[in-house]
């Protein structure tokens, strides 16, 4: 029997490289002769660029070129082409790149950027969603109507700051509310924040004399870079080669294309010489894209027995200065807007809004952590009003097979998973029966909060994935896949699936760690917790393809019908007579007869996958299928709260998730724990603060706080397994999900503990104090 396969813990393939520090990331290698580019960034959130004088910078030691937006009047963007790689004419956020200095060394570039003088004429700043939506508000983008839309389902409102609206209209909300016994309404406000991946973003580019552009990047989307570079700069796709080594954390932030465009422009300015650009932490926080901000108003209505009948919601997304993934994020919120609950009457507007804040891109959970906060806080309020157990309320209203989603997709056990069992398993983990709020004496209170979640992806229907399999002479397998290894051990998962399917030892399955768009089959992007599903489906097909070839050749060699043959243990054998077999090694590079004749060539397997049956949402009702299936779960947070000081300690965080099938137990657990840790970061400390002029104030890790290792609570993880029938071995994606309900569960716990409704984040003691006391000492 093979070692490994699925369902047992496997150490990630690159573990030794990583624990010894041998793993190489994009900016780790700096070959001689590579030039360095540095950004000059905007010191205003909204201003006309009157003049950029870089004459003195050009005279500095080692400077090879200085470029500005005027040199490249192009627009980029994954959904809407609205963003010049270097600001042109005006700047729209604090930290926006306005010029690029290319020099011999980082040292020379850093010196020279101080000699670039930019003259600005300040414009009125859109510093909040309410300012953006006020009538007569200054426009962040004056001519939205001229922008090229890459995505077909965008509904911008030129002449306003609205770049997209998604509507959900299901049932009759007004009628339903009039039949409700209990109605709660609340407003929520969540700030923008950052990804803070350990590796800051970096890219290098060179252009060979034949015009081929080579890019190396810390990216979750090498194939996206290829597509965008070729479209923005009119390059032949075959002449753009993107390479991605290990990525030191992405969390969605590295799915956007930004530095790659700058690296290309820089290289072009120096006749194709290789140029590297690497963000400082400060630039990574302000200049590169961040996590969205959200203002939301929710109204839920229920009958007195606790059945939720109606939901009305407005989600206003602070997408910042450029659209990037913003419209897709607000769409994702609309698609899953109710949380995993069966509500027959739903009205939801998800509005993507431009402001003069740093622009937002995908972030772990893809908008779900944000809207889930609002839904789950409102549910707690409803439970309170109904005097119901909050877990019971959730269980009672949980979606079930046969129900329709907000976009009217009929659910099945396979596509939805099972929320009820997750809730049941969560109870003992957080000792729910002992009560939500326990007075410990000494002005300390222990309190629990809970939250449920669901998430589908909002992938393009034409998102593709692929796997190519080849063999070594000794019968071991080589896997060539296009997913990026950015942390969740994707490559190992692919190896595990193949090891199971081909019944071979996982140590004999060799996976490419680096991705090169010239040799690897296209994989959409390593995002959306879709990689196991998409690459897995491709891997299954590829495995079947090699099996077919192996069996067909072996049938000749073993002189038996192919249907009598089985593959396993690197052999093809006769099912009813296993002693009659042939080794892979004697087949995979062709079979050689005694006399020296050889037949068949090497065996090459191919497998591909396309997302397929998704479609665009109806403009007026939102009806349509945005994602292929869901992952559901239930979470809890326990805190110890001090009623005198408004401080608290994190005691426990727990998640029970329907994994479909747990492929790699320890890895799944670690992913969920990592998600919870990030969720606690959002809940307890992470946010951007702005000055009145829209300047980001938390520009470094001195003031932008992330969870420290020593502050983590006890993490508890458990799984439910409801197979996803169309996924390899039933597995669902779960890489993002640990984050989704945690900020809500934390706020629910602290609301219970403090006795006030905490409807904003992050929840630092001062926030609780302000809400509790009105802010007067």
């Amino acid at each position: 029997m093979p070692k490994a396969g699925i369902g047992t813990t496997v150490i990630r393939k690159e573990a030794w490289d990583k624990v010894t520090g041998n793993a190489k990331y994009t900016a780790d290698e700096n070959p001689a002769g590579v030039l360095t580019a540095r950004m000059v960034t905007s010191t205003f959130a909204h201003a006309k660029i009157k003049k950029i004088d870089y004459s003195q910078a050009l005279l500095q030691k080692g400077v090879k070129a200085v470029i500005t937006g005027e040199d490249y009047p192009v627009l980029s963007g994954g959904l809407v082409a609205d963003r010049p790689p270097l600001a042109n004419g005006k700047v729209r956020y604090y930290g926006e790149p306005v010029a690029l200095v290319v020099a011999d060394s980082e040292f020379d570039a850093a010196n020279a950027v101080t000699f670039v003088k930019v003259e600005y004429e300040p414009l009125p700043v859109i510093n909040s969603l309410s300012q953006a939506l006020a009538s007569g508000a200054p426009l962040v983008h004056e001519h939205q109507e001229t922008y090229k839309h890459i995505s077909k389902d965008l509904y911008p409102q030129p002449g306003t700051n609205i770049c997209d609206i998604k509507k959900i209209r299901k049932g009759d909300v007004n009628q339903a509310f009039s039949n409700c016994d209990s109605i709660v309404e609340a407003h929520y406000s969540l700030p923008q924040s950052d990804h803070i991946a350990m590796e800051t973003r970096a890219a290098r580019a060179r252009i060979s004399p034949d015009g081929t552009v080579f890019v190396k990047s810390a990216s979750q989307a090498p194939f996206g870079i290829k597509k965008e570079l070729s479209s923005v700069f009119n390059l032949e796709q075959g002449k753009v080669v993107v390479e991605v080594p290990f990525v030191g954390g992405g969390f969605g932030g590295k799915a956007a294309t930004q530095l790659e465009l700058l690296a290309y422009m820089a290289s072009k300015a120096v006749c194709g010489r290789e140029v590297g650009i690497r963000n400082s932490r400060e630039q990574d926080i302000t200049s590169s894209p961040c996590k969205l901000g959200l203002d939301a108003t929710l109204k839920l209505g229920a009958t007195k027995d606790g059945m939720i009948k109606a939901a009305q919601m407005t989600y206003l997304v602070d997408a910042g200065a450029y659209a990037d993934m913003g419209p897709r994020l607000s769409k994702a919120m609309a698609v899953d807007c109710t949380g995993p609950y069966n509500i027959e009457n739903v009205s939801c507007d998800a509005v993507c809004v431009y402001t003069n804040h740093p622009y937002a891109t995908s972030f772990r959970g893809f908008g779900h952590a944000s809207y889930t906060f609002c839904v789950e806080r409102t549910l707690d309020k409803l439970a309170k009003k109904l005097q119901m157990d909050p877990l019971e309320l959730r269980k009672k209203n949980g979606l079930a097979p046969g129900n329709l989603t907000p976009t009217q997709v009929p659910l099945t056990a396979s596509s939805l998973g099972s929320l009820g069992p997750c809730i049941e398993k969560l109870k003992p983990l957080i000792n729910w029966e002992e009560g939500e709020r326990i007075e410990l004496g000494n002005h300390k209170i222990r309190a629990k909060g809970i939250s449920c979640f669901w998430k589908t992806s909002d992938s393009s229907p034409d998102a593709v994935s692929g796997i190519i399999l080849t063999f070594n002479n000794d019968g071991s397998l080589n896997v060539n896949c296009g997913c990026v290894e950015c942390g969740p051990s994707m490559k190992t998962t692919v190896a595990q699936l193949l090891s199971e399917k081909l019944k071979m030892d996982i140590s004999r399955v060799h996976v490419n760690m680096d991705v090169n768009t010239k040799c690897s089959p296209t994989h959409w992007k390593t995002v959306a917790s879709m990689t196991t599903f998409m690459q897995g489906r491709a891997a299954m097909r590829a495995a079947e393809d090699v099996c077919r070839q192996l069996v067909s050749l072996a049938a000749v060699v073993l002189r038996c019908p192919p249907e009598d043959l089985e593959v396993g243990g690197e052999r093809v054998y006769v099912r009813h007579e296993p002693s009659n077999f042939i080794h892979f090694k004697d087949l995979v590079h062709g079979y050689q007869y005694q006399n020296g004749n050889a037949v068949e060539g090497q065996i090459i397997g191919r497998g591909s996958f396309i997302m397929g049956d998704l479609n665009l949402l109806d403009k007026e009702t939102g009806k349509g299928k945005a994602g292929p299936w869901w992952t559901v779960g239930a979470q809890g947070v326990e805190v110890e709260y001090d009623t005198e000081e408004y401080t608290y300690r994190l005691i426990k965080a727990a998640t029970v998730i329907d994994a479909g099938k747990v492929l790699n137990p320890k890895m799944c657990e670690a992913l969920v724990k990592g998600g919870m840790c990030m969720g606690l970061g959002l809940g307890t400390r992470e946010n951007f603060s702005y000055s009145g002029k829209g300047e980001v104030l938390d520009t470094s890790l001195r003031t932008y706080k992330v969870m420290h290792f020593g502050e983590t609570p006890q993490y508890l993880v458990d799984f439910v397994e409801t197979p996803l029938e169309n996924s390899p071995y039933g597995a669902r994606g779960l890489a993002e999900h640990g984050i989704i309900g945690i900020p809500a569960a934390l706020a629910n716990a602290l609301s219970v503990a403090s006795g006030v409704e905490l409807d904003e984040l992050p929840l630092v003691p001062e926030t609780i104090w302000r809400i509790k006391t009105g802010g007067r000492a």
Partner: protein
Amino acid sequence: MIPFDFEYDRPGTVGEALTVFRQLDAEQKNPMFFGGGTEIISMARMGNVKTGAVVDLKAIPECRVFEYDKDRLLIGSALTLSDLVEAKRFPLLDHTAGRVADHTMQCKITFGGNLASTIIYRETVLPLLLADAVVTVATQGGLRDYKITQIFRERLQLPRGEFIVRASIEKRWLSAPYIHVKKTKNEKVDYPLLTVACLKADDKIRMAFSGLLPYPFRDLQWENLMNDKSLSFPERAEQISALAAPHLLNNLDGSAEFRKFVLNNTLIKVLQTLKGV
């Protein structure tokens, strides 16, 4: 990366340090004394500090003393904060030093560097203010002793080219009842909303603060209120908070109003813990 070149000197004696600094200054290199380097490096990286030369004081034996001299404890300025924490000789100072930055930084930041910091908190001065420390300064005229209050008002006030060699504390303070409370926005390692250090002697509480104002301080009027037996604990706290309120810092770590609340609360706790006077 630090985007400029600078000279690095590591003199072995106090005299050499003074001389080399003077020479570099004459050469207009704008020299700086260098302890752990955490501030110079992080600020130079961001373009907030520019210097042509640094003079590292860590190889000077007098700056590394940590010993008793008759009835006093001598604490060298080039000791790191983790040296202080691990030695456990002056518990109030150990506690204070142990809550400045994180452990990695404490292994770099020096005692003298923290006192001379341009970042407003300078928390290790608090125990010195309370224990009437004497500070030995290297001057062009040789070593000179000052009372801490003579050379530290809001920040270190030394003429250019002079540096702290050591501080000394009378032994009797080392074992005095003390309390150290640091309150932050939400986590252990952060700048203070307030740090208060207290020593109790002769039935009186001495207290010094960081984080409330843009500098660390000890205020005798506040101390008098703190020790006023005619007032209840909450009354004392309230009167001090009222005095402080108009001046309190308002920054990303916390608003002035919240600082007032935390101050009031903390003072009551201090009084309860030290059992008042």
